[in-house]
């Protein structure tokens, strides 16, 4: 009997040891794939202009870390290609706080949610990074071979080999995947992509008080009968206690005016309709989704050079005015036809204009009615939105996203 017990005991010890070994092996693997070296490699790829056909464009060119990883100029769309003269189709979204995003899915009530790019067509950051490397209007490598060739000559090529294998550059698909993987790890783990260093974050931690105007703006931002911004740009902590990211990752159709500054819009039959195409193709038959673009984070929104998917607005104040006056004063935002009638929602095909959100506040009003926010109230909301800028310094009461970027 004691022998039997001893045998059982040994068996348990063996099982336990097996668990310990497997456990430590898997954590060792996890640790190796997320080492600072990998993040550092991702950081170098992100900033490497030599990876483009022009030799002058990196990820950071458009997603400038000092501007909250969004664009640093007022162009509606950026131009890429070998000579940096091939215009794009959409403004540059910020890459900050994307680690909280999810793959694209339809929620139980049918709401499209998550996904990367403004139309959510990429399910992961690894998938998302494919297009900028290859697309003709961006880094324009054309194919993976061309990109991997550039990678093999980069200053960090040896580090790349040591991490992914001495022959990695001979395996083009693997090398391309590895580069995107390093980028995604960098983008989703490096602190500069999710610093939570704004004045609002300090307010949430109870470290400081917002000014009276900022608090008034916060009320207007949240109030369902005023700005109602928080309905999509969630302003309270996430369910797991993380600070809010000011988006619910859903999609909306705001009827933003058509932007003639986008060369593609010269064709009157061209419409960028977000979820239903033309760039995204899998939802082309969902006509009800035409015109919907992803709700962006409002963190650092006060530093944006252009606003909305087509970069139509160049100031935050204009964008806020558009929100609340789109339906009360449509003539202010849209052109008139020959007969003097307002061509409302002129950036979606006329038959799909019904898709534009006109049922929820603040855009559920009519010409002549008072806007949901007055000019003074817009000032207050702007004061609040400025508290969402990263890199806040309590001493000077200023904020700058560039402060979160570590020195190279």
């Amino acid at each position, binding site marked *: 009997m004691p022998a039997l017990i001893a045998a059982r005991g040994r068996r348990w010890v063996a099982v336990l040891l097996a668990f310990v070994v497997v456990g430590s092996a898997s954590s060792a693997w996890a640790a190796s794939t997320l080492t600072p070296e990998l993040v550092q490699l991702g950081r170098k790829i992100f900033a490497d202009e030599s990876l483009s056909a022009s030799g002058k464009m990196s990820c950071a060119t458009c997603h400038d870390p000092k501007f909250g990883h969004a664009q640093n100029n007022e162009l509606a769309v950026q131009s890429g290609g070998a000579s940096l003269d091939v215009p794009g189709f959409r403004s540059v979204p910020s890459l900050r706080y994307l680690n909280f995003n999810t793959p694209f899915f339809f929620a*139980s009530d049918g709401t499209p949610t998550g996904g990367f790019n403004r139309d959510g067509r990429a399910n992961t950051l690894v998938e998302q990074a494919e297009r900028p490397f290859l697309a003709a209007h961006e880094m324009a490598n054309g194919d993976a071979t061309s990109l991997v060739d550039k990678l093999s000559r980069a200053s960090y090529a040896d580090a790349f080999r040591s991490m992914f294998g001495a022959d990695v550059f001979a395996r083009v698909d693997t090398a391309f995947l590895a580069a995107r993987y390093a980028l995604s790890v960098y983008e989703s783990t490096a602190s500069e992509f999710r610093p939570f260093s704004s004045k609002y974050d300090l307010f949430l931690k109870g470290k400081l008080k917002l000014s009276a105007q900022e608090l008034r703006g916060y009320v*207007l931002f*949240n109030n369902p009968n*005023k700005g109602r911004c*928080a309905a999509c740009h*969630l302003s*309270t902590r996430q369910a797991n206690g993380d600070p809010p990211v000011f988006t619910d990752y859903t999609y909306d159709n705001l009827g933003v005016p058509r932007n003639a500054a986008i060369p593609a819009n010269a064709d009157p039959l061209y419409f960028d309709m977000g979820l239903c195409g033309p760039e995204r193709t899998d939802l082309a038959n969902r006509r009800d989704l035409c015109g919907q673009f992803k709700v962006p984070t409002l963190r650092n929104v006060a530093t944006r050079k252009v606003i909305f998917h087509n970069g139509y607005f160049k100031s935050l104040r204009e964008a806020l005015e558009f929100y609340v006056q789109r339906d009360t004063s449509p003539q202010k935002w849209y052109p008139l036809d020959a007969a003097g009638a307002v061509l409302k929602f002129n950036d979606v095909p006329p038959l799909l204009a019904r898709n534009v959100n006109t049922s929820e506040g603040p855009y559920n009003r009519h010409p002549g009615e008072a806007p949901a926010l007055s000019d003074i109230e817009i000032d207050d909301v702007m004061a609040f939105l400025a508290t969402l800028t990263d890199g806040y310094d309590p001493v000077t009461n200023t904020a700058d996203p560039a402060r979160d970027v570590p020195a190279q």
Partner: protein
Amino acid sequence: MKRNSLTLAILMSCTGLASNAHADDTKLQAEVDALRAEVVELRGLVHELQSQRAPAQAASPVSGAALPNAPLPSAFAAANAVPAPAVSQPAATTAAGDAIPGTGGSGLALGANTSLWGYGQLDYNRPTKRISDTQADLTRAVIGFNHVFDENTRVYGELEWEHAVASSTDRGESEVEQLYVEHALAQNYGMRVGLTLVPLGLLNEHHEPGNFYGVERNFVEQAIIPSTWREGGVSMYGNTDWGFNWNVGIGTGPNLGAWDPAADEGRLSPLGSIHQELQLAKARDPSLYAAANWQGVPGLLLGGGVFTGKIGQGDAVLPVNRSRLILSEAHLRWQPGPFDFSALYTRGTISNTQDLNLQFLGQPTPVPKSFWGGYVQGAWRALEWGSDSSLSPFLRYEMFNTAAAYATQPQGLGTAPLPTQRVWTLGANYYLNPNVVFKVDYQKFRYEDLVLGYGNRFDLGLGYQF
């Protein structure tokens, strides 16, 4: 034993034996023996009377609360008795005197030590102004079980399905409402460990549809006392010979960190929106409760209780750790003859909500500083058919406010308290038999709130229990 000695002493003094202390010992012994026999006979008669009284109790709402503290030799032995179809079988009670559902005559015995019981509720609500919102619902179906391990120990559980279908894509819920082990430490006190009902109010512990008037549970005991409110922990209960029941406990409490200022639930029921139902409950800060009821006069029930605890639960990021909940209530129920009157008042406070609400500025549902409610209700068993069927019209008036006050915020930025809702409910319960009830009522609201479901309506309901 205490009671037997007392009875003996009374009888002794009545018969003058005390004054004959010096009489012949043998004679005295004989007389004592004779009296003992009489006491035994009387005890049997009392038991018989209680058996006959049980069906009438079952026919009247809140039978559990109204039951006297029957000194059954063993509550659990009674609970184990194979239920006979005859409704004259006595309802078993716990040592605390509460009726064990399903042992009142028609529960299902599974072997010698286990019984099943259950109840269900189906509702039809027809708003008078918005008829398109008319709704029919299988509100709840419940299966309960009671398993006795020995004379003093049992496990008791209640499993519930709400709204007919529960799945990831449906709105129904599947839940364990009660699950605890009870151990009688003596005949008149014991302890429970597990998921138990919080013993506040008239309804929370006696929420079977036959036990309340009206199709829906009253608003006060949903909005303020969040019935069915249960917490996990340890409690002790007991009763005294003079009709005093008590129950004290320590365990889990609500989680203020889960407050959602953008949702409506917090205005519907502040505690209902943050109670945890022992579902991976955050449990750093234990809550305490104490409740007592006095039933020393037949037909009268007086009681009250308090629940308190820090409800921040150690939340690392929200300024909630200093917040304390205090919910107290007092109630009265008086059942003279065919009449049935009850009244209840309850008030809750949550302290230190100012900093938290500052983060919720402008949102529709900040955390209230205080909330309260009360109701008075009168019912009359107007008609009876045979010993089983009866019709009881009733009238209830409720006042409640789920956000009577908010903590102060910077000038001009605070949220106005909610208006106090007032609801009249006029209706009737028709007991086809003590365990099957048909209900009808009309509810008139002081103000309409479509979001919270407040609007005049006509209701029909069916309830059963076994």
